[in-house]
């Protein structure tokens, strides 16, 4: 007798916990949102295939998910080398990404952003990257550390320095206005 079974369960907690950081890592590696999304899907399909993994401790899950992500990126480059192609959609996406990542479009819309935009452009690359991961991806220090392969302390320091620089510049501007 045919009996419908229960709907499959998506491990939402696992997805919400790891997907933002893994997406940030993928976008940093493949530079195309479309490809990053495809890879993210593939990674979580692999995780679902290995369901016993979901019952393992958090440390194991963490290592496992990041190992899969790194392998998928390696596979991506291997495949790209064998089948070099770039779609129009990807080109559009890359342009879009570039505009978004360095928040030029938004910044230039208003005069008050122009100053911030200039300051951010002057920041060292690593500081800009940390700002982006923090505010653009909403990642925690721990997750940023994983994406950049740095210690959590180093990430805190980088962000602290970036914000200090920006704040200093804002202070100067305010002081000028108050004169």
């Amino acid at each position, binding site marked *: 007798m045919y009996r419908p079974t229960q709907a499959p369960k998506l491990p939402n907690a696992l997805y919400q916990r790891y997907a933002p950081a893994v997406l940030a890592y993928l976008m940093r590696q493949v530079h195309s949102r479309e490809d990053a999304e495809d890879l993210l899907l593939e990674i979580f399909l692999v995780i679902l295939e290995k369901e016993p993994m979901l019952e393992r401790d958090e440390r194991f899950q963490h290592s496992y998910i990041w*190992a899969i992500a790194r392998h998928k990126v390696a596979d991506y480059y291997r495949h790209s080398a064998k089948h070099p192609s770039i779609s129009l959609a990807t080109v559009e996406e890359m342009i879009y990404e570039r505009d978004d990542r360095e928040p030029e479009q938004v910044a230039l819309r208003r005069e008050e952003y122009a100053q911030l935009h200039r300051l951010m452009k002057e920041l060292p690359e690593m500081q800009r990257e940390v700002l982006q991961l923090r505010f653009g991806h909403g990642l925690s220090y721990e997750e940023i550390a994983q994406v950049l392969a740095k210690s959590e302390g180093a990430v805190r320091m980088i962000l602290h320095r970036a914000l200090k620089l920006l704040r200093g510049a804002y202070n100067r501007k305010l002081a000028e206005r108050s004169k």
Partner: protein
Amino acid sequence: MAEQGKDRSTEAFDEQLDSSTGFFESTKHRLAEDLQRSYGTYAQANKESLRRVEQRLETRLRQTQQGEEAKALENTQKRPQRIYKIENRSARPKKTRWSRLSRFLSTIAAVLVVGAIVGSTAIVFDIKNRSASVGLADQTPISRVPCSDPSDPGEQYVCTNGLETPLNITTTTFDKREVTLFAGYADAQRILLKYMLHGPNIGAEPTMDLTMQGGIELGMGASGYILKKPLVKLANFSADKVPAGTKELQLTAHLRQVRYDGSKPAEDSVHFSLPFHAEKRVASINQTRNIGGASLILDHVTITPTQTSVYIKNDALARRGGFRQPDDIYLSVGNWNSHNKIDEVPWTSNNKTTGTTIGSILHINSPLMDQHGKWILTIQPGVVGGTGTLAGVFTFTVPVAQ
């Protein structure tokens, strides 16, 4: 996610913006607001991406589920459908007159159909014979073991040269399925196990964890398909944890079948032994090259019958998570080269996923034990994200097996 992101941003400013500078309280808020607005579009796009992937994931899961349900439903409906067809056919009015042409064409069609049936029957019988020779659980010794596809030449080498150990060990029935381990091989880098699944396709496949004598866990096998019908798989384990001096592996394979309905997973274990082929060729190299502005150290190379591993040390490489384009790394010896055959994994300080990453290991699953002469490893600058066109070249020799 939106709330989470908001909380994190707030946390960032609470921690990072120095509130002791009370005079600049308005600066703090202005900077916070501007930064959040600046990244607003990008953050929104990321949330959209995450939502899209989540939806695709759910759709994929639903499709898998529906596929299984449709099959089950189809099985229950097959018989009535067939009866219906037969009934319809008998009810169809007979034709009273056939033209000569249509009769002639029908005769040709009939001849072709008979030919096709005879041919396909022969093919079906041949396939059945082949399947049987692979060895089902209830059938006697496996006479023919299929080798995997050419994407794993190391496995092919040990298979075609008869270096694998026949096993023919079958689990008890768990979750309406049985698993037969029918061949295995172990060298100083890889442990390979081939197994066949019998029973209904239930969507999920069992995973396999391996433990050796002394309770040493060899981890969960990464598996790939050798055949899909019958379902034959290859589980691949790292032999890094096998202690030096081991001659034979006393192994326990723990199989676990997770159920989609959330009920308790089905499990079973089988015990068996495999000879351990400990011989390996190791070259301690420790050469440094400056490639694209990065200083890379070729530390050492290990060769076993199923795999060659190249260990490259570099802090920056480790921080970035590996090479940018591993395909732009070439290893060659004699007439052989590694074109598109390199897999890269992180090299950690303690050879475990929990260790600190110190570089990359390049795995090449080709049988290179018999390759002698000058080995050349070429790394293009783009691989390390550097500029320029000057590739780094390491030249070395590898001693004979220990």
